[in-house]
């Protein structure tokens, strides 16, 4: 025996593992006005999505060398920024229109579940894990992102001087990873409102991606664990709906080595911001190691950087 004789569990790191599919496929995203436009809009939406679902599935199978990939599908409903209708009215409609297009929604999530799920402040936790990409010349003295609420991909234009200072020439911002020319982006992560923070849409979407990648934990325990479909139908209040519902009992696991998100091209800017955020999150070591190790063992190793595990299809909206 070579291990230590004496151990204390509270002194050891521990990260519970979660089941992982090969691909988590998101079947489009809609704003409340799309739901308000009625079932026809939903029908057109899913008919378009169906085309790209087939392509994404074929791509996942190709990566596995023809083996059958485990693919779970999901759909996220926005109940954080605006609320429309009730789960009892809306969800059956969504499921019916998806089914008409030949699609199955395995997991259904509420967007507010990305802010707080089962009393765990997911967005807050991810905020604590942001590690900013340092522009050249950073030697350990930057104010943390937690103080500013903004995250950029480079160096901002220097702020306006006080009245006493001389007028200085405008200086351009600079993208740290620029190839000759910059594409500078600065993302607002939250705003303050009565009663706390209002997380921005890209930030919640980044949390959503991390959940789908199986990289979120709380004290080493899994979070946003799928719950079974309520037996007596869907509730009449969004708050009574679990943050993540498993609608297909036999579905492959919700989280996966990779994600593919199918969305209309109006979401391009938001999703670019999501990648900017994902590229600056120091995710749970244990969870990262588990995904690395298991995907390699299955012969389909994940890309090293987290943001590279996330892919998209942007389509023209119907």
């Amino acid at each position, binding site marked *: 025996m070579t291990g230590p004789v*004496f151990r*204390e569990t*509270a*002194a*050891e*790191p521990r990260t519970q593992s979660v089941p992982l599919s090969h691909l988590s496929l998101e079947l489009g995203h809609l704003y409340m006005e799309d739901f308000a436009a009625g079932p026809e809009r939903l029908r057109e939406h899913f008919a378009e999505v169906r085309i790209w679902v087939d392509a994404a599935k074929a791509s996942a199978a190709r990566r596995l060398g023809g083996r059958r990939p485990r693919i779970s599908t999901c759909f996220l409903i926005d109940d954080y920024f605006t609320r429309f209708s009730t789960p009892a009215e809306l969800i059956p409609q969504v499921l019916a229109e998806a089914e008409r297009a030949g699609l199955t929604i395995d997991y259904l999530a509420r967007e507010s579940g990305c802010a707080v799920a089962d009393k*765990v*402040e997911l967005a*807050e*936790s991810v905020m*604590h*894990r942001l*590690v*900013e*990409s*340092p*522009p*050249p*010349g*950073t*030697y*350990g*003295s*930057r104010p943390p992102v937690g103080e500013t609420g903004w995250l950029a991909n480079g160096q901002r234009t220097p702020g306006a001087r006080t009245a006493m200072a001389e007028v200085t020439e405008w200086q351009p911002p600079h993208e*740290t*990873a620029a190839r000759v020319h910059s594409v500078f982006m600065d993302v607002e992560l939250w705003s303050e409102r009565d009663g706390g923070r209002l997380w921005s849409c890209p930030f919640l979407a980044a949390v959503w991606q991390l959940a789908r990648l199986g990289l*979120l*934990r*709380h*004290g*080493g325990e899994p979070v946003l664990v799928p719950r079974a479909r309520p037996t007596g139908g869907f509730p009449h209040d969004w708050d009574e709906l679990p943050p993540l519902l498993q609608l297909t009992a036999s579905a492959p696991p919700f989280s996966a080595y990779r994600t593919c998100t199918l969305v209309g091209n109006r979401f391009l800017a938001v999703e670019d911001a999501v990648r900017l955020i*994902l*590229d*600056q*999150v*120091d995710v*749970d*070591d244990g969870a*990262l*190691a588990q995904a*690395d*190790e298991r995907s*390699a063992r299955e012969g389909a190793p994940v890309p*090293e*950087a*987290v*943001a*590279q595990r996330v892919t998209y299809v942007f389509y023209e909206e119907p």
Partner: protein
Amino acid sequence: MRPRAETTAPVPVLACGEVRTCLLPAFQALDSRTAAQLLRLRADERVRVSERPNLYALSPDVLTGVDCPLPTANGARVRAVGTVAARAALTEGRVLQTTAYFRIPATGPDVRRPWGHYLVRPGMLEPFGKLPEQAVVEGVLRDSQRGALDLGMIAESLLAQLLRHPLLDQKVPFKSRRTHLRWAAMRAPDGAGASIESFVVSEEGLRTVRLRVPEGTETAAVAGLCEDFALHDWLLTTVVRMLDRSRTGSVDGPEAILALRPAVDHLLHVWMPRARVDRDLGHLWDVLEQEPGFTRQWQTLVQRIRDQLAVQAIPLLHKALAMS
């Protein structure tokens, strides 16, 4: 440091760090629950708390991104990019330490890679080109250089953040000074075990330690060893100063007792070298026990304090007897 399935990760040849050690500014020592609250640097990650053989709490590592020249002794400019890890530890709810540390391979690419590449190698810096190892070791152990990587600043800012914590009432039970311990661990020759090359006590509370460790030694384990050195060096420094200030022999009675009592209340039980030091590094303590003899000095100090308190108690006893 963190276990990870990596095949492409470069092998570090050097690890460096700086430890700050100070008395926790709280009237009462913290129990394990409050210690965990204090060191909870992230909402979703547990603080590791251990109660054997003494009370010890260790925060998760937090990262700081850097892209700057490394300090060098000969003015050589070498840029490095990556993350510096920082962590905090509280021993017996009384002595607070923060460490900033990194590890670095012998060479790196001449371009900066996407940030996600660095984030999956927490606590690792990558040099642009070849690492001038010896010059960096000398540079890190010296005072900080303008614009170059500043481990002290990273350790200090974590310490400052913790010292502002609302759990602390800012009532120190006695006066003490902070110490800084800078360390550099180069790779030991193949087949050789870990060794300690020097331990230098300088003025202004600065200590520098040079080590050699075998390939594959976890940087967190080296950081842990150096925290253990720093903790015990701080205890010696603090108690020596306390005895100095008590003006042993020249003041009488209650005054001398008042000056020495904090050592009994807060410090004497904290002494426990290598309580949690990695098995493969623990023997490095033997070197310091041999020369200068840390524990030998400590035992002498403890004996002096106990003798002083006994001597001061005699007149009180006389008085009590005379009154009866």
